[in-house]
């Protein structure tokens, strides 16, 4: 069985194609299907998003005994340099078995650009200190250096990253293998997170707040609605994904959320909700233009209804 990876494995456009190829994997849990190949021969472009999704698929298949000794087939030089560039080499060690494929289409060079790359960062709920350390030691210096004159852009990015991480911890609490990657240049930043945890749809469905007959599309839409949380009366406010969605509309960015057979997309304010191949867990893709940043506070300020009733000492 060949699982074909997309030619341009770079952004939200390729994810539905990827998911329709990959969904069979989730039906093969424990089956140890032999002769499975991750067919990367068509890949011509690979971003941190592509590297993350390919890695998470291999990781899931191995930890859930989906396949027996799966192989990766493709241009080894290209893939190896991509793994190195995006920081996946250490994760893939032991997973990737060298092949003697004759399907190489010549030497395909993985191009390095002026982009910055933030290597995969684990978002384990059990490692709060580690995540804090990552934000302080990996993200802060890179972003401060890259956007040295764009203080508001850095605040916007961290505002969104903070909400994404909080959301992943809310929904991926049975998965300790969530990963976040990022890359960008002076004009934009792209952030992708993926896990194989419970997933937004299952979390919402199991919250007991919705009819069992509720469609997955309805539940995903609810998860993006302001004030809706699967954990009411906790510190969670149900604002995280909504805030990101608002910022994306205002900055003309892109925000895509994929979970368990459905996805939501916001492309510069144009929204869509569609079915797609099943992915156990959640994938979040965020593209933020750096021009004209919008801060979390600009989005939530209009939500303040009791400004005059709450006296605070900001002395």
């Amino acid at each position, binding site marked *: 069985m060949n699982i074909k990876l997309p030619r341009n494995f770079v952004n939200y456009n390729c994810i539905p194609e990827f998911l329709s190829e990959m969904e069979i994997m989730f039906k093969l849990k424990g089956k140890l299907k032999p002769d499975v190949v991750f067919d990367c021969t068509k890949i011509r472009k690979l971003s941190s998003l592509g590297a993350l999704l390919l890695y998470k698929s291999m990781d899931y298949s191995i930890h859930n005994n989906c396949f027996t000794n799966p192989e990766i087939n493709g241009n080894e030089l290209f893939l190896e340099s991509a793994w190195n560039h995006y920081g996946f080499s250490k994760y893939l060690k032991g997973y990737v078995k060298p092949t003697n494929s004759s399907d190489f289409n010549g030497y395909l060079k993985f191009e390095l650009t002026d982009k910055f790359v933030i290597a995969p960062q684990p978002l384990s709920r059990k490692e709060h200190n580690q995540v804090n350390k990552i*934000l302080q030691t990996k993200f802060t210096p890179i972003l401060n250096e890259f956007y040295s004159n764009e203080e508001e852009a*850095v605040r916007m990015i961290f505002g969104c990253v903070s909400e994404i991480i909080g959301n992943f911890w809310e929904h991926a609490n049975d998965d300790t293998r969530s990963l976040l990657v990022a890359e960008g240049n002076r004009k934009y930043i792209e952030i992708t997170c993926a896990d194989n945890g419970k997933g937004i749809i299952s979390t919402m469905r199991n919250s007991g707040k919705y009819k069992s007959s509720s469609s997955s599309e309805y539940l995903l839409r609810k998860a993006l609605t302001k004030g809706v949380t699967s954990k009411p009366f906790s510190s969670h*406010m149900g604002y*995280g994904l909504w805030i990101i969605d608002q910022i994306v509309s205002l900055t003309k960015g892109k925000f895509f959320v994929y979970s368990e057979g459905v996805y939501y997309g916001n492309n510069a304010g144009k929204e869509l909700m569609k079915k797609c191949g099943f992915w156990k867990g959640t994938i979040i893709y965020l593209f933020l233009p750096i021009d004209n940043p919008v801060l979390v506070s600009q989005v939530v300020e209009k939500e*303040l209804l009791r400004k005059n009733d709450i006296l*605070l*000492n900001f002395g």
Partner: protein
Amino acid sequence: METITLEKYGHIISDSSLGGSILNDISSALSKGKAVTVDFQNVISMATFCSKQIFGSLYIRLTPQVFFDKIRMVNASSDMKIIVRLGIEKALSDQEVLVS
């Protein structure tokens, strides 16, 4: 007066464990009868749920007047001020629902 410098916990306050540590440290100082200054210097961002966890819960527990008298927040950007207010408002909304 005791000063809690948030920078000590991180420039980005984005997880509930960190929020819990800050809440505990503020609560501990308050329990000694001290007023507390919370210094936001160099804090880049705070997740909205952390604001609710820290300032929302303190506001409910202390009551508005005691919160005002005992907790002084300094060097908070306009961004941070709004996020603190949102956390408090949402904690108040939760409390109203629970009471009713």
